[in-house]
């Protein structure tokens, strides 16, 4: 059974049709890269999946549960919507760390707030908080920033901030981790450290959807590459296929432009 199944997803902004029938599915542990020229709808697709935006039509099924399908009258309750929200993690292009909290608090904040809703919170407050902190420290260690736990975001480089953002997203144990151009806001010399964290997550079979302009990276980290064109899936398949015989003329010129540019 696939972890995510998207069928015929539509999204308009006013009169602009941004997504025009996107369909794909992915398996647990799979890494899916989404590439495509500017304005093709990549960000919008991620935002519809992560409930930051509501699609206009189509369906989304996560782990066998239909979470979006207006035509079939699917309407999640508040609790269900929140549970579904947590199935998806999101790493933003602009990091969006919380500036007033230390690195450690950035990673633990949401978990601590969630823990307050647990029935046994008052009884076991100490142990629960200790567990959350320990988990956060493990994650910071995984992104190589344990020694920065007490620093504030403004004291970190962009690459370090993005690695904290990855740890923060992982703290909620999402089923699917989404990245929207995680290195686009970084100086070129800082992209490597972020990409290598994502690589290590891929090696640990983390299910990920990665929107990126880093073609070489997409090619060697992904199980599947999806090329979007004007709100549609133009090509989808294994990287060798998509970058090889599967490539449409437009995709070839796009890749040429991106790689020459980079």
């Amino acid at each position: 059974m696939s972890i995510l199944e998207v069928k015929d997803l539509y999204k308009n902004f006013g009169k602009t049709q941004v997504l025009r029938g996107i369909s794909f599915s992915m398996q647990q542990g799979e890494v899916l890269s989404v590439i495509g020229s500017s304005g093709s709808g990549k960000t919008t697709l991620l935002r519809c999946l992560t409930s930051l935006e509501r699609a206009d039509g189509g369906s989304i099924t996560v782990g066998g549960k239909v979470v979006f399908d207006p035509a079939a009258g699917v309407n999640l309750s508040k609790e269900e919507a929140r549970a579904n929200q947590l199935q998806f993690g999101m790493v933003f292009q602009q990091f969006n760390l919380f500036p007033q909290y230390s690195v450690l608090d950035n990673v633990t904040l949401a978990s601590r707030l969630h823990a307050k809703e647990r029935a046994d919170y008052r009884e076991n407050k100490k142990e629960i908080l200790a567990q959350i902190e320990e988990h956060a420290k493990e994650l910071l260690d995984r992104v190589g920033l344990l020694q920065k736990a007490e620093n504030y975001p403004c004291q970190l480089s962009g690459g370090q901030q993005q690695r904290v953002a990855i740890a923060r997203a992982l703290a909620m144990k999402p089923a699917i981790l989404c990245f929207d151009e995680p290195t686009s806001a970084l100086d070129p010399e800082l992209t490597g450290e972020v990409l290598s964290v994502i690589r290590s997550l891929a090696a640990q079979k983390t299910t990920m959807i990665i929107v990126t302009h880093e073609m070489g990276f997409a090619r060697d980290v992904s199980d599947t590459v999806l090329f979007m064109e004007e709100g549609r899936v133009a090509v989808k398949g294994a990287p060798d296929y998509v970058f090889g015989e599967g490539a449409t003329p437009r995709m070839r010129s796009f890749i040429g432009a991106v790689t020459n540019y980079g």
Partner: protein
Amino acid sequence: MFWQVTFSLLEGFGMTLTIFALTLLFAIPLGLVIAFGSMSRLGIVVHRFAGGAGEAPHSIAIRPISSLCKFIVWVIRGTPLMLQLIVIYYGPGLLGFSLLPRFTAVLVAFVINYACYFSEIFRGGIESIPHGQYEAGQVLGMTRTQTFFHVVLLQVIKRIVPPMGNEIITLVKDTSLARVIAVYELIWNAQAYIKMHGLLWPLLYTAVFYLLFSGLLSLLFGYIERKLDYFKA
């Protein structure tokens, strides 16, 4: 004479402080209400699609709460506080109602006036927080309320401390307007010495009180700003 004057001025300063403190106490919460009111999106959106070719589609939003709040803020910020004071004190009489007590009238005028100024500061502060902060809260499964109180609020406070400091120091000096409807604050008491004894120096002496108090407030706001200096937002 010096001690007599000092004592009398202190009495007037007590009234000045009372107006100051009560105005802050009520104007800050009312300012928040007005700020949220003017940001309210409650209402209807009328879509009007383009008729001619090349004409962009546009829609008109009708948001009564927001419009009302913005109208009130426009009127209050666009007219002198002294005029508002006179209207609130004498206005009811013109309409055949009984007058408010002088002190109450002063408070009402000051609270409304300062609430409007504060509301604009609050609104600016809240709207200046990047949308990404709310979105980051949302994708981490935080509720809107949690995101506001745990993520956004302190960033807003950091941004509004300097303009609030300015406004509050202006309030210290604005309290002297209360004397136009004969509320005996600091300046009024000093002026009494001109009328009764022909003495000017008590009036100049009031500056010491204002300076000491606003100096104290500047120190306080400087302290808060430094406390919030540890992060950039």
